[in-house]
C-alpha cells in the first residue's frame, strides 16, 4: 500500500548507499499558512468544545447530585455511552448518519442541515457532547469534594437548595476542578486531530494535504506533530501558571 510515489523524487547516494527517502521541508514551509490556520481552528474548536461541554457537564453533574432516579439514570447512560464509544464513530454518526436519517426535504432533515451546516459545526457539536460526558464526571467529583460542613452551614442559614448550589457548591467546586479543566482542554485540542476525516481544515488536515498533494507524508505529519507538541506544552505550562494566579476569595 505504500506508495511508489515516495520514489518520485529520487533519493541521493551517500557513501555508495542510496538513501530511501529524502526529507524536503519546503513542502511544509511553502504552505505554512495551512498549518497556522489549522492550528488556530483546532484551538478554536477545542475552546468551543470545552465551553459547551462545561455547560452540559455542569447541568448533568447537578442533575445527578439531585438524587432524582430518572435524572441519575439519564445522566449515567449518557456518560457511560459516550465514554465507551470512539469519538470518530460519534463524528460519523453526526456527519453521515443524521442527515440521512430523515426523509429527503423533511423538516427533520432541514433542521439537521440548519444545525449542522458545515463539517466544522458538526465536529464542534460532537466534541461538545463528547467533552460533556467527561466533564460531568469531573464536576461530579468536584461536587463530592465539597465538604458536608459547608452544606450544613448553608442549610443552617436557611438557603434553598438552589441557593446552596449556586453560592456554596459551585464556587468551592470550581476551585478544585480547575486543573482538570486545563487537562480536558489539552485533551480536546489533541482530539480535534481526527476532524480532517470529514473535511475540517484543522492542523491534521494540513498534514494530510501535504501528503495527498505532494506525496510528502513524513514532512507533513512531523510538522503537525511538532506543532501539536509545542502548543500542548505551552498550554500546559500557561494554564498551570494561570491557575496559580487566580485569587480565590472562598
Amino acid at each position, binding site marked *: 500500500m505504500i506508495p511508489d510515489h515516495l520514489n518520485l523524487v529520487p533519493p541521493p547516494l551517500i557513501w555508495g548507499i542510496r538513501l530511501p527517502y529524502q526529507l524536503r521541508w519546503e513542502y511544509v514551509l511553502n504552505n505554512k499558512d495551512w498549518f497556522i490556520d489549522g492550528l488556530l481552528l483546532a484551538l478554536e474548536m477545542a475552546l468551543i468544545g470545552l465551553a459547551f461541554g462545561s455547560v452540559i457537564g455542569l447541568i448533568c453533574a447537578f442533575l445527578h447530585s439531585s438524587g432524582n432516579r430518572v435524572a441519575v439514570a439519564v445522566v449515567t447512560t449518557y456518560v457511560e455511552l459516550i465514554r465507551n464509544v470512539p469519538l*470518530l464513530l460519534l463524528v460519523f454518526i453526526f456527519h453521515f448518519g443524521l442527515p440521512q436519517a430523515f426523509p429527503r426535504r423533511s423538516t427533520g432533515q432541514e433542521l439537521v442541515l440548519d444545525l449542522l451546516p458545515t463539517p466544522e459545526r458538526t465536529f464542534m457539536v460532537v466534541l461538545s457532547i463528547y467533552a460533556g460526558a467527561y466533564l460531568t464526571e469531573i464536576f461530579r467529583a468536584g461536587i463530592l469534594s465539597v465538604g458536608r460542613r459547608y452544606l450544613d452551614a448553608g442549610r443552617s442559614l436557611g438557603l434553598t437548595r438552589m441557593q446552596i448550589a449556586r453560592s456554596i457548591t459551585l464556587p468551592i467546586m470550581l476551585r478544585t476542578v480547575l486543573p482538570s479543566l486545563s487537562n480536558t482542554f489539552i485533551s480536546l485540542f489533541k482530539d480535534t486531530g481526527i476532524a480532517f476525516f470529514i473535511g475540517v481544515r484543522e492542523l491534521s488536515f494540513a498534514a494530510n494535504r501535504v501528503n495527498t498533494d505532494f506525496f510528502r507524508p513524513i514532512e507533513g505529519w512531523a510538522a503537525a506533530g511538532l506543532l501539536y507538541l509545542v502548543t500542548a506544552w505551552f498550554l500546559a505550562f500557561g494554564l498551570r501558571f494561570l491557575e496559580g494566579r487566580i485569587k480565590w476569595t472562598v
Partner: protein
Amino acid sequence: MEVVWESRELLWQGLEYTLRLFAVVIVLGTAIGILGGVGLLYGHAIIRALLRAYVDIIRGMPLIVTIFILFYGPVAYGINLSSFQSIALALAIFAGAHMSEIVRGAIATIPRGQIDAAKSLGLTFWPRLFSIVLPQALPLMIPPWTNLAVDIFKGTSLAVLVSQADFLFSVQKRASARGHYLAFYMSAMVVYFVCCFAISRAGAWLSRRTRIGLA
C-alpha cells in the same frame, strides 16, 4: 436492522481484526510501560532523559500523528511493515508512553519506609522491586490501566484511516454500500460499548483480586 445482520460476516471480520489489534497492543504496551516506568524511576540519567522525552513527546501529540508517522516512516526508510504491524506498533508506542507514566506514578507512591525495610532485610534491587514494590504498586496501576485499555480500544478505530480492515472500516464500507448509515453506526456503537464496558468490568474485577491485604 436486517441490512446490518446481512452484513454480519464482513463486520465480524472487521471486529476480529480490531480485537487482534487490541490484544497485541495491550500486551506490547503494558510491557513497554513496565520497562519505561521502572526506567523513569531507577534508570541511568541518560536513560531517564530519553524515556522522559519519549513519554512526553508521544503524550503531547494526538494518536493520529503517531499512526501516520509510523505508517509512512518505516516504509520510506526501507523497513517493510504490513499495515497491521505499523498500526499495532503505533498504538503500542502510544500505550507504552501512557503506561510508563502510570507505572512510574504507582511506584512513586509506595512509601519510602517499605524500601528501607526491604533494604534492611538485605534485599538487593531486583528482589526489592519484584517482591515488595511491584506487588504493592500493581493494585494502584490497575484502575488507570483499565482506563488506558478502554482508550486503546477506542483508539483502534483510528485504524480506519490507514488500514482498510478494522471494524469501523468494515462498518463504514457496508454502510455506504447499503446506504443505511444510521443503522450500521448504531450497531457499531453497541459493539464498541459492549467491548469497552467489558474491559472496564474486567479491570474492576482484577482490581478487587489484587488488593489482598491492602486497605
